[in-house]
């Protein structure tokens, strides 16, 4: 049976997958073709969305990239009817393509099913090995043996901090309590990160299976998935997957005819970055403001409703079934001494191939950027990569040889984080990037600790001053001093790591800060107040849009004649640059 499978995760949908799906539906119905139409999750090649996989009569798989509704008819006509694949549009198939290099260095454990199975079907998941690990754990292993296995795999928490998962489970198991809880942290809040969303949308059953195994191991009967409300598709797929698992007896009473019972509920987050911190997340599930609290007691001792609670990230749970099935040693054989297994990264920014990748620990940053992502766009230079989001830092291109490994990344001043990687080129201003992240954390600070609440605000004001050309020589020392104090006096991870983007950019790009302060220039041409705007007469059509957009009436000129900017009147807001459709406004 021929199959057409459309990638329908959020990235695919935003690129128009729904319309492509409907078009296939229409054409298949019209021509009455014996073809099954299915959907799948994210295969990772976001740069080629909309992606459609076609399994033809010979059992060959062809992955079409950049499919539009207009191309659907042609694909059906040529490939499905005449059995002639349209090779120029195929990004992966039986014949080698230039996109193959995207997959060569990847190793897929967490993403083993993403983009391959239909996430709406529990049968598809079971067929791909889903719930086999649960069977093995429940019927063959004692809870202690499960924990030994996870400890032996040396899996570390994938949410960012990297605490050994098996050890954490052991704490929760040994805590005395009549009731215990398992929580899956799916409050993926880092801007520029979408690993967890892709896993939840593409393979929800693996996460659910990981949670059930965890419940068995620590002795919990209830689980919560705390998921961002901004991920409606993930929530919908999770609800559906939980209902299916209940129907098949993987959730509920007497799971697999044992006396083990486990239930999972979904809690939708309400938009607060700090709720990714475990004690704040617990407060939020309990229906309160998401303020973190002092640890100890750790959640493993006193968590949700004061009961022992184990919290892990989506990716951590998705690793568990693989570890149980393949054994701790298989997992521990991947990676470096310090970090085992694989890590999923969401790659964005100025690279040619943005998307979702899973690589073995120990791979270098350069390998990810040049081999998997095929280097930078528009022939530009790789300048830095931002890892770990607002809690992380910028690693300069010079350190591209660094291995992906918790210890090595921490040494640079960044953190592994949950897996966001934003790649920057020379057109990115590092001071502006630091300001961007600080603006984010300052907004998201819950306000409990003084230095996090006010210190980040003051730091942000200094950065704003610098990017507006009003920086002072003493500002950099002041920034460093404040950063140190915010780090030392904040209760939770948000505050303790908030200064990281500033500290790492200061460490590796101090000169760029100094150019802003002393030369009043922004080398990347980003900070508007430090730029000079001029209109290129040969490009200007005299449409007058820039003059209309100028709040300072600094632009004049006759209609249909080149306009010009009065430099002394210009307030450097950049609106003319934004308003011009002809690229006639030049900034330097």
């Amino acid at each position, binding site marked *: 049976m021929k199959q057409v499978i459309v990638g329908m995760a*959020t*990235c695919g*949908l*935003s*690129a128009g997958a729904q319309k492509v799906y409907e078009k296939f539906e229409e054409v298949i119905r019209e021509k009455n073709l014996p073809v099954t139409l299915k959907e799948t999750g994210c295969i990772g090649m*976001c*740069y080629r*969305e909309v992606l459609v996989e076609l399994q033809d009569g010979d059992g060959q798989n062809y992955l079409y990239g950049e499919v539009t509704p207009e191309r659907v008819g042609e694909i059906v006509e040529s490939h499905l009817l005449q059995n002639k694949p349209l090779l120029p549009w195929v990004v992966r198939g039986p014949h080698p393509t230039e996109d193959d290099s995207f997959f060569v260095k990847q190793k897929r454990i967490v993403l083993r099913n993403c983009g391959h199975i239909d996430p709406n079907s529990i049968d598809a998941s079971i067929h791909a090995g889903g719930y086999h690990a649960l069977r093995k754990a429940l019927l063959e292993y004692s809870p202690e043996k499960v924990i030994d296995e996870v400890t032996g795999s040396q899996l570390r928490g994938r949410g960012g901090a990297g605490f050994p998962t098996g050890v954490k489970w052991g704490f929760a198991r040994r805590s005395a309590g009549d009731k215990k809880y398992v929580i899956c942290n799916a409050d*993926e*809040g*880092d*801007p*520029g*990160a*979408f690993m967890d*969303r892709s896993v939840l949308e593409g393979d929800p059953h693996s996460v659910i299976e990981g949670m059930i195994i965890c419940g068995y191991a620590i002795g919990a009967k209830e689980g919560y998935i705390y998921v961002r*409300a*901004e*991920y409606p598709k993930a929530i919908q797929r999770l609800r559906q997957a939980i209902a299916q698992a209940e129907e098949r007896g993987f959730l509920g009473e007497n799971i697999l005819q044992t006396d083990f019972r486990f239930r999972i509920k979904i*809690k*939708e*987050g*309400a*938009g*607060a*970055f700090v709720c990714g911190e475990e004690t704040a997340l617990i407060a*939020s*599930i*309990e*229906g*309160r*403001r*998401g303020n973190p609290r002092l640890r100890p007691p750790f959640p493993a001792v006193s968590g949700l*409703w004061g009961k022992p609670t184990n919290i892990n990230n989506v990716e951590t749970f998705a690793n568990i079934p693989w570890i149980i099935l393949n054994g701790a040693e298989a997992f521990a054989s991947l990676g470096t001494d310090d970090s085992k297994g694989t890590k999923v990264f*969401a790659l*964005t*920014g*100025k690279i040619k191939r*943005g*998307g979702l990748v899973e690589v073995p620990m120990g791979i270098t940053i350069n390998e990810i950027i040049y081999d998997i992502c095929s280097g930078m766009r528009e022939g530009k230079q790789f300048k830095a990569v*931002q890892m770990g*989001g607002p809690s992380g830092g910028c690693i300069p291109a010079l350190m591209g040889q660094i291995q992906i490994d918790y210890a090595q990344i921490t040494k640079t001043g960044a953190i592994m984080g949950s897996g*966001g990687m*934003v790649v*920057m080129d020379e057109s*990115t201003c590092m001071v502006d*990037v630091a300001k*961007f*992240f600080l603006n*984010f954390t300052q907004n998201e600070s*819950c306000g409990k600790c003084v230095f996090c609440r006010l210190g980040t605000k003051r730091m942000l004001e200094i950065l704003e001053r610098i990017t507006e050309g009003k920086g002072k020589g003493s500002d950099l020392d002041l920034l460093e001093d404040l950063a140190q104090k915010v780090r030392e006096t904040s209760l939770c991870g948000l505050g303790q790591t908030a200064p990281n983007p500033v500290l790492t950019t200061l460490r590796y790009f101090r000169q760029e800060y100094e150019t802003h302060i002393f030369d009043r220039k922004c080398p990347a041409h980003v900070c508007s107040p430090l730029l000079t705007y001029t209109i290129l007469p040969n490009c200007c059509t005299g449409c007058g849009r820039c003059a209309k*957009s100028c709040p300072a009436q600094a632009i004049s000129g006759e209609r249909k004649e080149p306009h010009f900017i009065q430099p002394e009147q210009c307030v450097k*807001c*950049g*609106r003319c*640059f*934004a*308003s*011009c*459709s002809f690229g006639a406004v030049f900034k330097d």
Partner: protein
Amino acid sequence: MKASEPWERAGDKIRLQGFNLELWKYEGEPGSLIPLLQAAQRDYSYIPEAAIHYISDIVGIPPAQIYGVITFYTQFRLKPLGKYLLRICNGTACHVNGSKLMGQVIEDELGIGVGQTTEDGFFTVQSVACLGCCSLSPVMVINEDTHGRLDPRKIRKILKSYQSAG
């Protein structure tokens, strides 16, 4: 606004019109405050004051404390939305790809800033931290429709298409 408020006074009680009965299923369960607020917002597009009092009665938490929870989370609104909710993404990828400029264009075109609603109640503009479709950056979402790889020209065209569609 008074006429369109979704509640009426019946004696000394405030009665909410068209209240979704689904709300009730959370009754008695601890930690149900946030789901209740989310349900109220789903029904009304914001949380009317009467809903706060109503929910307070259900969960036994004082309205002032509920107000504290509402203002803590960015998802909750105390004012109604415009017909179209325009969310401009300000995630990292969008930021380095020029989302600030796109925000400015939207501001100029609509004459309102982030967090405001146009006078005709047509557009509400919000800024969000990340919509999770970074490979399409810069991105904005109008109601449920995502518009990616924006540039000033494209934004103007998109806004016009909504305005002329009414």
